[in-house]
């Protein structure tokens, strides 16, 4: 029978199926290795499962072709008929599985990419978070360092300002909205005479002003201008004494401008003020002295002539009535000459001096011996506290005795009856700048401020007319000045030593000791003048 033989096809099928079987298993082995070595590779996973389907396909085809040939050739066609549907079915499943895998793989790939992208983002976010965390940690460390540094600076600043506040010689004060003192430094407390801070905190500042008008000016300036500069005023201390202050203060404001208090610095200018007053007084006294010297000098000559002629007339006139009148003229002229002499003493006239090294203690004892009896008649005791080691001074002993006599007489007049006059002698400082002090205190009534200012003025007296010329203290002032010393009055004295004895007024005479440079210079000047 003619026709195209099919056995070439069967031979190709038979060997082809075997070949496919071998190749599919080789492929499966490679795929298995790839999958195992690249566990996270989706493509190799796909290839592995594709190989599985190819293996299934190869088996089905080997069944379909090779087994068919063997069964038909060996005379078992009925067996092939039973196996054929299984082979075909497996073949179909293999196709479909391969197709499903192929279609499914890109989706898995996409899902994996999405997961990988998410993982990558997560990783990036984690890295960013770690960087941020690191930065935050660094920032925290830096912040801690900064806080420590700032705290250190703050502590230093606080210490600096605290030292300034505590150690300042001027008063530094803070007031609240009601004008009450909320804080003040130790100098401020001392200035106002307080010892414990709690005593002064809360006290209204107003009460320290001596003059109410000053407080009003201060307060108005703070509230109107927000500050006050170099405001000079007088404050009342807790013990009742007064001090001069110069205040510079400013308002403490909130952000909205509301004044919630004030802060300021007050400088005690009492000493400066007193020094200035003394200087002015000294200048005034010098001017008066010059004037007095001029007048005295001009009056001295005509008075001498009047006295001379009066005395001549007395010798020539025998009439008793006229003689008596001439005696009155002579007496009054002598009085005038004495006044002129006193004026010259006050004005450092060129009167002859008897300069020597004087032991003040001896001088005092001698003077006290002279006046003691008079004092005792009025019930006045004289108590001496003399410095045994008192150095000598360069002075005119008679002049110094005159000064001492004036001071004792003033003390006696101040006491009136029954009292005590104290005399101290002291020395201060080393050899070259040593000062000798004579302090005369009395338990009289004291001197008020108004009188105290004019006490050394010539012709100023509080005694009744005829009892004093008002030249005693001014002459004493002139004498002490001439000796290079000072004379001061304190009424009432602040020192407890005097207060405890009931002393109301003290006069302090200060002279340079003979050993001091000042005294030596002075001596040279006096010698050259003489």
């Amino acid at each position: 029978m003619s026709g195209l033989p099919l056995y070439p096809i069967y031979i190709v099928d038979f060997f082809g199926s075997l070949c496919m079987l071998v190749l599919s298993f080789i492929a499966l082995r490679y795929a298995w290795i790839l999958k195992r070595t690249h566990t996270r590779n989706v493509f190799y996973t796909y290839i592995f499962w594709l190989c599985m389907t190819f293996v299934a396909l190869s088996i089905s085809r080997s069944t379909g072709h090779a087994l068919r040939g063997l069964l038909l050739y060996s005379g078992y066609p009925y067996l092939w008929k039973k196996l054929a549907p299984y082979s075909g079915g497996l073949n179909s499943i293999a196709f479909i599985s391969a197709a499903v895998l192929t279609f499914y793989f890109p989706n898995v790939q996409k899902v994996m990419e999405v997961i990988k992208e998410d993982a990558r983002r997560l990783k990036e976010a984690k890295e960013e978070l770690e960087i941020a965390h690191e930065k935050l940690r660094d920032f925290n460390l830096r912040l801690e360092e900064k806080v420590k540094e700032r705290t250190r600076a703050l502590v230093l600043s606080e210490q600096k300002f605290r030292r300034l506040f505590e150690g300042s010689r001027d008063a530094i004060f803070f007031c609240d909205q009601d004008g009450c003192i909320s804080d003040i430094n130790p100098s401020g407390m001392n200035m106002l005479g307080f010892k414990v801070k709690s005593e002064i905190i809360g006290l209204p500042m107003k009460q320290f002003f001596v003059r109410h008008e000053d407080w009003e000016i201060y307060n108005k300036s703070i509230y109107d201008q927000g500050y006050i500069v170099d405001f000079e005023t007088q404050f009342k201390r807790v013990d009742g004494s007064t001090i001069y202050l110069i205040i510079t203060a400013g308002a403490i404001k909130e952000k909205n401008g509301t004044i919630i208090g004030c802060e300021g610095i007050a400088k005690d200018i009492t000493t400066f003020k007193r020094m200035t007053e003394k200087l002015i007084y000294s200048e005034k006294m010098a001017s008066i002295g010059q004037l007095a010297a001029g007048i005295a000098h001009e009056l001295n000559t005509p008075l001498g002539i009047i006295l001379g002629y009066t005395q001549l007339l007395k010798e020539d006139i025998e009439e008793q009535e006229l003689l008596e009148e001439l005696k009155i003229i002579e007496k009054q002229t002598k009085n005038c000459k004495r006044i002129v002499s006193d004026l010259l003493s006050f004005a450092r006239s060129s009167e002859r001096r008897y300069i020597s090294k004087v032991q003040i203690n001896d001088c005092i004892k001698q003077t006290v011996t002279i006046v003691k009896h008079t004092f005792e008649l009025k019930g006045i005791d004289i108590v001496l506290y003399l410095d045994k080691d008192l150095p000598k001074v360069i002075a005119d002993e008679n002049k110094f005795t005159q000064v001492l006599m004036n001071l004792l007489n003033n003390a006696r007049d101040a006491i009136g009856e029954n009292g005590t006059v104290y005399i101290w002698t002291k020395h201060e400082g080393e050899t070259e700048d040593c000062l000798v002090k004579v302090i005369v205190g009395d338990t009289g009534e004291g001197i008020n401020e108004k009188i105290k200012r004019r006490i050394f003025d010539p012709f100023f007296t509080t005694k009744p007319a005829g009892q004093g010329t008002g030249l005693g203290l001014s002459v004493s002032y002139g004498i002490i000045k001439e000796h290079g010393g000072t004379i001061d009055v304190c009424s009432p004295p602040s020192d407890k030593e005097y207060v405890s004895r009931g002393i109301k007024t003290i006069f302090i005479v200060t002279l340079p000791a003979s050993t001091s440079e000042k005294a030596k210079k002075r001596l040279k000047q006096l010698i050259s003048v003489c």
Partner: protein
Amino acid sequence: MKDYIKNIITVFIFIFLILLDSINAEAVQIHGPPEGFFVHIMGHIFFAASLIFILYLLEHHPQKHQNGWRWLRYSFWFFLAWNLDTLMVHIVYRRMPYSSLYLPLNMWEHKLLPPYNLEHVLYYIGRFDHLLCIPAMLFFVLSLRSFLQSHSEDETL
């Protein structure tokens, strides 16, 4: 009670009522003999479509000129050709009259009988399908071996 629970209950009641009303059991579908053939043909079409799809992806692969990927493309082209070939043979075989083949017990005497037409020719040539699938499988093996050798870490297609 939540809405979705109400909906589920309503659906179940509806299905229950339908089942109460049914006369014949419809649960099992009986599959006739030609169904296997159609499933097989559809399997081929499905496989061919998947190969076209994967080839499309491979054509756009950035490393398509490297050995592994190139052989993989060749492999899939051959698989596609083999698949179309076998599909054609299945169809032609079904269309050919049974008398076109002489199939005695002795397989060495099996013949394709004249008269011959295009379908006979296509059938006879198409039956040598191993000439397509063996190169396909060979390229596939070569591709995998290349991947293995290069230790490619490429995880993208």
